[in-house]
């Protein structure tokens, strides 16, 4: 494990390079370039705001629904784009995998970094929106790095699991969009977790994506530190998923070139 980590550090150049190549290739071809990173969450935000605050009134507390939905969407999109791109990535790069030797995890992880850029842009825009709505910056922001770490570890874990399983069984590719769709409705992206009956809420928040989205909202919109009862289980689960995903990926990667 330590040996694997050391080798990954040695190949960090490749990790950045693949992520940057992806970004450059993605944005160079399009007329709007980087604007696309914003267009997706913003347009979804507009649609959901119209549907869920005009047509159907979803109670979201004091903050405007647009901001409420935007945090959820930006966070969710980071997860879903990383997972769908990361899962397919190893199979897509088969040409490279059967021709050169390097730590294979750089391929799915580079997808995570690439969608991380979009996430950062999304957050930058969110800060501007917060200022626009006059939401105050509070000391609760100091747990922001913790939430981000949990989120990234969890995404990395899922991406590693998905990428390795997809090489072994292509069924994963067909299953994934369905899983992501269901998962989104099981996470408080467009509605608040308060709507979940309190009997099930603790169970509901075991989903690290639910915990992360609620925690971000609590920090940015509520100005409150998220409760430890939400963050602690999410941290443990995210860490477990990450470590098991990494171990499983390294365990199966020796066979990748043979299976293709």
């Amino acid at each position: 494990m330590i040996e694997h980590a050391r080798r990954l550090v040695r190949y960090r150049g490749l990790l950045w390079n693949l992520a940057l190549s992806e970004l450059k290739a993605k944005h160079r071809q399009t007329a709007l370039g980087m604007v696309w990173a914003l267009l997706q969450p913003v347009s979804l935000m507009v649609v959901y705001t119209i549907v869920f605050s005009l047509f159907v009134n979803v109670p979201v507390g004091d903050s405007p629904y647009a901001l409420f939905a935007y945090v959820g969407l930006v966070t969710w999109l980071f997860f879903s784009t990383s997972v769908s791109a990361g899962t397919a990535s190893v199979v897509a790069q088969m040409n490279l995998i059967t021709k050169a030797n390097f730590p294979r995890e750089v391929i799915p992880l580079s997808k995570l970094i690439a969608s991380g850029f979009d996430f950062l842009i999304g957050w930058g825009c969110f800060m501007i929106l917060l200022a626009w709505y006059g939401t105050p910056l509070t000391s609760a922001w100091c747990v922001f790095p913790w939430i981000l770490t949990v989120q990234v570890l969890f995404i990395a874990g899922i991406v590693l699991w998905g990428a390795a399983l997809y090489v072994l069984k292509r069924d994963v590719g067909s299953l994934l969009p369905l899983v992501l769709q269901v998962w989104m409705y099981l996470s408080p992206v467009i509605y608040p977790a308060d709507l979940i009956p309190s009997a099930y809420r603790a169970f509901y928040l075991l989903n690290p994506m639910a915990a992360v989205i609620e925690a971000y909202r609590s920090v940015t919109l509520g100005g409150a530190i998220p409760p430890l009862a939400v963050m602690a289980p999410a941290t443990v689960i995210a860490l477990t998923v990450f470590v098991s995903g990494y171990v499983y990926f390294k365990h199966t990667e020796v066979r990748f070139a043979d299976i293709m």
Partner: protein
Amino acid sequence: MSLPEPMIEFDKVSKCYNQQPKTFRESLACLSGRSARGNPSEDAGFWALQDVSFNVKRGETLGIIGDNGAGKSTLLKLMAGITRPTQGRVDVKGRISSLIELGAGFNPDLTGQENIYLNGAVLGLTRREIDGCLQQIADFSGLGSFLTMPVKYYSSGMYARLGFAIAVHVQADVILTDEILAVGDAAFQRQCLRKFKVLQNSSTIIFVSHDLARVKEVCSRVLWIRKGRLHCQGESGKVVEAYLQAVREDRDHDLRAGRELHHEPEERRSGTGEVEIVEIGTCTERGEPRFAFRSDEPLLVRIKYQLHGHSHDLGFGVNIMSYAGVFVHGTNTFIHGMALDLIKKTGVIELLYPNLPMVPGTYWLTAGATSDNNWSVPYDLRERVCKFEVLSTRRDGGLVCLEHHWSDPVEHG
């Protein structure tokens, strides 16, 4: 300190490729990773290599020859660490640069220069190390201002140039090559060969090629892999000769046993089918099937045909191409004004080159039959239907050995 240490060690290495699991239970076992290493069931798997042991010393250039599917590529993949042996031990020291496929991993949307960094990173270089050799790579590739253009606009030759330039400039201890000198035009091939000879002084090189003349020329030692086993190893000239002899015998054997001849996977076939080219082979002057020739030896191309339907003004043609695809020579019965009046359904037509003037290398044959010299709608056109080797001790470059004589220098006052 000067004692050459083994850079590559293979100790009783075997590699078995498992069939994909078929049932759900097998899939579960596969997912749990139980079959990840060790005991694959012998009946389900395909043994690509069995019990191969050898050493390669620092600074040595080792050639690997063998038929298609003998296990050469598996051997390279094991050396590169792309795949693991099923049994035995593989030990490779130092940095490996793999030229197994030039430009594998180029991102078509990125520029040449960006791809240099990407490909360098794949080979394990840091950004600073690539900065250090960027200029050399750019100079060697000769691509100049094309480097700022996305590589999707490159020709296949430019693609290969860039791939080669990167792979040879990363200061690797071990360089793995597969048919490497068969790319690009003649000038670039010569440039590659020169660079290759420089690298031979500093690196350990594994050279896999079907170009037996080149193997003989550049390698000090050769391994011959036959059906997954190390058939023999030794001084390059001897092994190559033994291999050629065996190829000849195999072919004789195939013919006697009436089995189908080895089919070239690169073949392209087209035509309307009224006349079929059943078989095409290369022979000696006396009609014995043969696969390797020496420069200036006679070459007989034998075409077996069969008439299926009505044909009109029938004629046959033969082209010779170099391995890299350069058209060396082509002729047909129309050019020679031959009127073929065929009555029987089957037959043989032969084309004799009394002395083959080509330089060493691998050559492709294309044969066809058509009507009225119209090759855009042939009866049967079999491109790259078979290949033959030309061996020579001559070192002339180019495609053909033109008759030539050097004068003694005449010095002026």
